[in-house]
């Protein structure tokens, strides 16, 4: 039992995922991919909190391979639940490599959050990047290949920056331990700058967010459920571990939510809508991490857990539509409730949950977020958060389901999703409902969820020591909390209905909306291409010209300074020695004064 308790649940998923890659029998593979997260959950339940449970010595440094505390527990639990439901969702697919690699990807995210030091986290993060790239390439299109290469470019850069930060940490402290966070308690130390830059890419901060909306619509149907969620939520976890209470994150998070949600409201591809929506929700979590009070950290963790289930459910619904209808373009869909009513029902449940309605998961997490941010943020930040929330409800909870299932009838009549997909969606919907029940019995419903939050009980991470306020006493179903959330929900709904009746307020892009990736995908690419063409034509002539100039310069220098040169003759010879001495003295003087 002690041995089992010391196994990082992520290792279980990675090992079983690797085995699944080589198992040709589909049923055995299905057992492995569904069973791996269950095994991981069982192992996690045995873990003792606050102690290094597994360690290894690498390069004269002790790595903690498994560590559980109240901050990483809820993230890891959410990942394992999503991996399990994903396993069921993907049962219909007979693709040996995809099955195995998706499990490895989920396992790397789990292993990363349960790592007890920064180097272990980095290693698992990079395993996750490689496996995620595979999920994009497996899509099989040229666009997916190019998007996968861009994804790798972004994430390798992120990895290099992270490693740079770690080297600074190691150089200063001789350790990769989480306890060395004092080094990065401010931006004075370069380690903080490098690590934040790395996490900015992973979490898709504004200007470096484009990888997310780029890969989301191009990955496989199944990979689209896991990839955007796990990649960004691991980054939120790392930010909560490393930078709680950093003011700059409050503003970055608010800008992130505002900027990306505008794009979510206009793009045409449903998977891109989800990607931008997830980006905006990540912004709200980043904002809460930046505020850094225990309540705000709890809000960030609860919102992350909620997004894994609610956006996971929406992604599964959109995936089911894409799988059966062959497209996820909102302009090509509409009226799908006629043949996919159960998928429509589950997507609506996910949307209602995300909108913060009572008795759904969002109903117990969004009040926490509003209170956590509202407590300490300035008015502009609060307005940004309200804008982000309104936009999320408008786009993900209303526009997306209405356009797919209830918009103008496209006469597309895809069959209902396969049973396994419906089962996975039904289980998520039921779980979200169960976790939002009022605490009729102690330890059930949202009480259970709240007990898992980082700053609630048990061994708290260092992050919770920012202030001494506790979560005790927060009741999401008090009128004061419910009405605040419902104001945003109903106002967004009212505005959506008004827009449906007022065509001059409607905007829907049928094609591409340029984002900041235009800089490298169009301008940068075209400039590089143009430079290549210019060099191809003018290169030989320019090379010859440069060669001739270099040759002339060399001849002149030789004529002047060589032993047979002009300076070596007569009186100039002595003059050259004097001038050399003067110049040397001047250089030495400059060096002396500049030290």
């Amino acid at each position, binding site marked *: 039992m002690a041995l089992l308790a010391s196994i990082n649940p992520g290792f279980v998923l990675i090992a079983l995922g690797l085995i699944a890659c080589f198992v040709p029998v589909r049923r055995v593979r299905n057992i492995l991919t569904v069973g791996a997260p269950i095994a991981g959950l069982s192992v996690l339940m045995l873990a003792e909190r606050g102690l290094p449970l597994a360690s290894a010595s690498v390069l004269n440094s002790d790595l903690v391979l498994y560590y559980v505390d109240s901050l990483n527990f809820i993230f890891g639990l959410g990942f394992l639940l999503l991996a399990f439901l994903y396993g069921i969702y993907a049962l219909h697919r007979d693709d040996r490599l995809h099955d195995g690699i998706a499990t490895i990807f989920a396992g790397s995210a789990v292993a990363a959050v349960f790592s007890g030091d920064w180097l272990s986290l980095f290693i698992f993060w990079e395993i996750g990047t490689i496996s995620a790239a595979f999920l994009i390439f497996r899509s099989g299109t040229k666009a997916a290949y190019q998007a996968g290469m861009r994804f790798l470019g972004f994430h390798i850069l992120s990895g290099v920056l992270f490693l740079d930060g770690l080297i600074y940490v190691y150089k200063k402290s001789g350790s990769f331990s989480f306890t060395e966070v004092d080094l990065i308690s401010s931006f004075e130390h370069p380690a903080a700058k490098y690590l934040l830059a790395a996490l900015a890419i992973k979490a898709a901060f504004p200007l470096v967010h484009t990888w997310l909306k780029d890969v989301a619509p191009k990955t496989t149907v*199944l990979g689209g459920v896991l990839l955007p969620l796990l990649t960004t939520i691991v980054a939120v976890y790392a930010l909560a571990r490393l930078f709680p209470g950093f003011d700059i994150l409050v503003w970055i998070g608010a800008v992130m939510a505002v900027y990306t949600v505008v794009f979510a409201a206009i793009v045409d591809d449903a998977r891109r809508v989800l990607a931008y929506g997830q980006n905006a929700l990540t912004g709200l979590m980043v904002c809460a991490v930046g505020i850094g009070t225990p309540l705000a950290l709890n809000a960030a963790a609860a919102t992350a857990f909620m997004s894994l289930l609610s956006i996971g459910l929406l992604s599964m619904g959109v995936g089911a539509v894409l799988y059966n209808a062959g497209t996820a373009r909102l302009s090509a869909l509409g009226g799908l409730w006629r043949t996919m009513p159960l998928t429509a*029902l589950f997507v609506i449940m996910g949307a209602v949950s995300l909108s913060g309605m009572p008795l759904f998961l969002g109903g117990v997490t969004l009040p926490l977020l509003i209170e956590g941010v509202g407590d*300490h943020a300035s008015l502009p930040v609060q307005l940004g958060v309200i804008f982000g929330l309104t936009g999320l409800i408008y786009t993900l909870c209303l526009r997306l389901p209405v356009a797919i299932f209830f918009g103008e009838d496209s006469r597309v009549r895809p069959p209902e999703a396969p049973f396994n997909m419906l089962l996975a969606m039904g289980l998520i919907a039921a779980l979200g409902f169960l976790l939002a029940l009022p605490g009729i019995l102690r330890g059930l419903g949202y009480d259970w969820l709240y007990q898992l939050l980082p700053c609630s009980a048990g061994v708290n991470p260092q992050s919770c020591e920012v202030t001494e306020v506790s979560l005790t006493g927060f009741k999401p179903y008090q*009128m004061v909390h419910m009405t605040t959330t419902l104001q945003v929900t109903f106002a967004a709904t009212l*505005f959506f209905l008004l827009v449906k009746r007022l065509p001059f307020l409607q905007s829907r892009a049928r094609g591409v909306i*340029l984002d900041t990736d235009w800089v490298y995908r169009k301008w940068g690419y075209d400039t590089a291409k143009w430079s290549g063409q210019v060099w191809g034509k003018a290169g030989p002539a320019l090379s010859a010209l440069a060669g001739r100039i270099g040759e002339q310069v060399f001849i002149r220098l030789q004529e002047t300074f060589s032993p047979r040169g002009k300076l070596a003759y007569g009186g100039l010879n002595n003059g050259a020695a004097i001038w050399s001495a003067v110049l040397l003295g001047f250089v030495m003087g400059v060096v002396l004064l500049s030290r």
Partner: protein
Amino acid sequence: MTDAPIGRDQSGRFVKPEVDTRPPDREQDYHPLALTLFGWTRATRLPLIATITVAAVLALVIMLSAGQQGVSGDLANVSGFYAGAALLSGLILALAGIVIVTLLGRDADYYGEEDTQPDDVEERL
């Protein structure tokens, strides 16, 4: 300029009427649970009823939210602040959308990747 007669263009020539080539909408193609679960959405007055209902509920929520949760600043403590801010956000969102689509909207094949259907899409249709 006068409107063209029905079935003709501005110069008076006959034009082919647009034909709906989509398959017919037959209830026998529906899922057995479809009408039970969502048949009510075909009511033509539903959007109007929904708008009025949501507006009424919103008004009720605002009235109930006299003691909305703690926020800093005088403005944020005004009853209905969140509803007002959300409505304003919605308006800004819609207007920003119009501006962005106008300025930054391009063809679907702008980056040469219009066809992005993954390999694991069902080939039944």
